[in-house]
């Protein structure tokens, strides 16, 4: 371990030390401390003296890893900011909450930066372990406990699959280094079949984390039961980290026999997610199924297997992440002491009560549905055209159909917003942190739709 390596690991260390030390910060300042740690890590990732990229054996410190770390750190900071008021009305223990969020961000960053199967496992488990607790953090809420259990048990199964898959891949290739394992599998070593079996098991575990059908059934229950800010982090960050891994370090599409498997997962996700979202009347469950569909689109980016497709995928992640964080952030900011406004009926009359938040909700749902000129449209445009270039015409047609049908379930809550409702509101005005996060998400949604050039260029600069 040289000094360069320590420097390269510095952002990760900041996250880790922050998550340990926040436990000793007083209740009132804990979340702010968490925000500061996350932002510090994000800034350190781009500090000039880190420019000498020196990879450690387990995690890379390349531009892509640093970009992802910045993204996840920002998501973590957003989660802390969004949960300030939410926490106060539910008597969460703030230090533990902040510690878990930071540790979760740490796990995500290790995952998306991993260069080895070991660090992949470690990162994924660190992230998931934090989520097990975060989801069930609201101890007064029985659905929260149920959600925690429903994430825990399938999560164990997925971890077992992942470990077994890694073991098989290692047995077949004799190395843990990700690029070597993929290259050896593509080259067709003597134990080719075993390697393929291993990759399939890893794929299944990843499909669970990314909630691809048919590994998606936990998603709606967990989203519904988890505290809204946690659900936001789960929906954007954990899935984003998994896909960042697939886009940068594990180009599964290079392994030819896995391509049909990926395609089937994508197709099933689009179909199942779309149909299941149609009858929903609960905002969080609807978003859960819609995330299944969006992850199906993301698999398209993985399938393209080339640079342009990966860039499109990252751009899609940014646009999807901004919309999702804003959606769950809105639920958090609209929830009072009595509970979250999850049902569409609870949204009635919101446009009159708090027009800004109603406008943002409308905008982000339209963006998810892919209306121009918002970010979702641009994301789908670049993603689908990249997939078309790669020759997956039938998947793109399916994706187009599913985004057509998606207008139905995205516009249903929007209609309710503008109906005059009888429901009494028990939420106050948004506080500063919520305004900051929601406003930034809104700006990203608009800018990425109208003027995507700079974001695309930034992504092109970091994608390896």
């Amino acid at each position, binding site marked *: 371990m040289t000094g360069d390596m320590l420097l390269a690991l510095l952002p990760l260390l900041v996250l880790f030390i922050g998550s340990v030390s926040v436990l000793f910060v007083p209740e009132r300042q804990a979340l702010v401390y968490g925000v500061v740690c996350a932002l510090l890590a994000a800034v350190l990732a781009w500090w000039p003296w880190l420019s000498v990229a020196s990879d450690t054996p387990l995690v890379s410190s390349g531009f892509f890893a640093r970009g992802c770390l910045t993204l996840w750190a920002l998501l973590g900071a957003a989660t802390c900011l969004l949960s300030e008021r939410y926490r106060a009305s539910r008597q969460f223990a703030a230090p533990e909450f902040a510690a878990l969020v930071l540790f979760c961000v740490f796990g995500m960053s290790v995952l998306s930066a991993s260069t080895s199967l070991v660090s992949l496992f470690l990162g994924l488990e660190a992230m998931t372990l934090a989520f097990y607790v975060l989801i069930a953090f609201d101890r007064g809420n029985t659905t929260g406990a149920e959600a925690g*259990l*429903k994430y825990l*048990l*399938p999560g164990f*199964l*997925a971890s077992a*699959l992942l470990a077994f898959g890694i073991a098989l891949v290692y047995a077949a290739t004799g190395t843990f280094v990700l690029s070597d394992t993929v290259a050896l599998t593509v080259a067709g070593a003597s134990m080719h*079949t075993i390697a*393929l*079996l291993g990759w*399939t*098991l890893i*794929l*299944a575990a990843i*499909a*669970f984390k990314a909630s691809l*059908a*048919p*590994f998606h*059934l*936990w998603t*709606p*229950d967990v989203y519904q039961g988890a505290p809204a800010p946690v659900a936001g982090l789960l929906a954007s960050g954990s899935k984003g980290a998994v896909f960042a891994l697939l886009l940068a370090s594990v180009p599964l599409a290079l392994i030819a*026999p896995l391509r*049909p*498997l990926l395609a*089937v*997962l994508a197709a099933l996700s689009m179909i*199942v997610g779309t*149909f*299941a*979202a*149609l*009858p929903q009347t609960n905002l969080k469950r609807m978003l859960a199924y819609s995330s299944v569909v969006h992850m199906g689109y993301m698999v398209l980016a993985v399938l393209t297997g080339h640079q342009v497709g990966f860039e499109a995928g990252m751009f899609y992640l940014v646009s999807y992440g901004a919309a999702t964080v804003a959606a769950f952030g809105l639920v958090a900011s609209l929830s009072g002491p009595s509970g979250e406004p999850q049902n569409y009926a609870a949204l009635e009359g919101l446009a009159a009560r708090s027009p800004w938040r109603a406008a943002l909700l409308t905008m982000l749902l339209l963006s998810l549905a892919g209306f121009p000129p918002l970010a979702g449209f641009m994301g789908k*445009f670049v993603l689908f*055209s990249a997939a078309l270039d790669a020759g997956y015409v039938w998947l793109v047609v399916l994706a187009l159909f599913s985004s057509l*049908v998606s207008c139905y379930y995205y516009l249903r809550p929007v209609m309710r917003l503008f109906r005059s409702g009888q429901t009494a509101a028990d939420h106050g005005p948004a506080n500063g942190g919520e305004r900051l996060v929601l406003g930034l998400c809104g700006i990203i949604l608009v800018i990425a739709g*109208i*003027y995507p*050039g700079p974001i695309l260029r930034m992504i092109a600069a970091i994608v390896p």
Partner: protein
Amino acid sequence: MMGELLFLIPLLPLGGALVILFAGGRMPRRMLSGVAIASVAASAAMTLWLWPLAGDRTRATLFTWLDVGALQLPVEILFSPLAAAMTLMVTVVSALIHVYAASYLHHEPDIRRFFTLFNLFVFAMLVIVLADNLLLLFLGWEGVGFCSYALIGFWYRNPDFAAAGRKAFLVTRAADVLFGIALLWLFRLTGTLSIEAINLQAASLPPTTVTILALLLLAGACGKSAQLPFSSWLPDAMAGPTPVSALIHAATMVTAGVYLLCRMFPLISLSAIALAVIGLIGAATAFYGATCALVQRDIKKVLAYSTISQVGYMFLAVGAGTVTGAMFHLLTHAFFKALLFMVAGAVIHLAAGEQDLFRLGQLSKRSPTLFWLLLVGALALAGVPLTAGFFSKDAILAACFARQTLWWTSLGIAGLVTAFLTALYAIRLVYLLAADRESASGHGPAPRGLVWPLLPLGALALVGGLLNLPAVWGGHETLGRWLETPAGALPSHDLEWGLAAATLLLVAGAWLFIRNRYRVPPTVSPGGAGVSFLAAGWQLDSLIRVIITAPFEKIGCLLEKSVERRLSATWPAGLGRLCQVTGQSWRVLTSGYVSHYLAAMAWGMVLLLAMLVVLLVL
């Protein structure tokens, strides 16, 4: 670097609109209107400052919105002399009308909505003017359409006004469809949407295609510029507040059609048929508008029909091949027609909302300044020699006669007849407003804010002819040289003098006729069948109702009863229900039991492994 500053010209009004929209609720009224005026005035100042860039035909790209293969959509503007002249006119006239509107809508409660839309309109109009990309131009085109719709129906609680807004929107939309077809077709043919590139490639297109394309563009222009047969929305559009009529429906938006034809002239001029049709439509509309304006009783409707008629002259000019003449008349018309509309607004304001010409009067006594301004505007409209309107109109007629073919000579004669009619109704307007009769009394003297913006316009209406003084009168045709646009066939000196003499005679004749007729203030009389036919705009509305609207409704009812009900009850509704049922049935999968979820994962594993094995074995 300076080129990028050009984007500030349209973006300043947009910024003003956004500030008013988001912060207007918390501003005092004066500050709100101040923001609106300042943003447009700043835009005008920017135009003057960046004026030298126009000489080099500066082109600036803000960014490329979409860049996929052949499809490139850069947000790009072209500051050519043509665009610069139009930009300066739009910004200056807008700034003056903004000042006027601030004091005109003194008692209006909802000026936030008004100024948001008003500034948004200026933005969209400037996008049309500056865009070098047909799609961007189309966005501005739809933007002004929307603002026009929302401002005509500004007092939307009155169902008639709201209906007028809808009518304007629908009629122009019908024409926009044709424009949209032309746009897509051009993209298909040339692979680009840049106006300059299309004009360069136009010569290589087959002649028939060019003719059809030009006619489609003409249809789009006719819709926006209220030319026959799309003219019927403009008289109704007078339902909006008078500043709206002055800015949108006289000075700027209705001339966007002419501007479009001028920009696309290299393409259009390749087809003689299209030029002939443009000339015909222009001359016919000019004549039609003038006859209708003769008998209107509503002061704003006189001006509306007059606008239709004057824009017809501009179309005639484009048809005759003199883009310079069209632009010249466009500019002078913007000055004197905006002036007339604002005088009309002030008169209505003085008379407490009375718009009937036969109930107004005594203007010369009650407000001499306004009367003189009215006189200036009317003289320019009538084309009295040495006013701005005289030079611009004569240039158009001269270009027609100079072509020396039967078609263009007869169109020129129609233009001369129309000039006589124009003089008639312009002088009639003055006489009726000055008539010595008891008129509805309203508020005291006109507020200063309603008068001083008119003074610069009045001056321009008088001396605007200097912009493009023909050589015969000792000028250098400054505008034409600077625009570098085609000026059409050159008229001989004898022809120009003859035309000037003819115009003088016609105006004098009209003055004598009106003086005899209206020396005694006329009483309110219903008038004969001919008068009511003209007053109803040649029954154009009824005609459209019989020919288009009624059959359309009938077919619609028929289809609704026979096909739609049966079909929608089966196919689409069935498909929707199928989706819903599928969704419901798949909900069962999410049973809530963790054991089921684990089982689903196991089955998923089995599926993946089975697929893998099958793939490997195959």
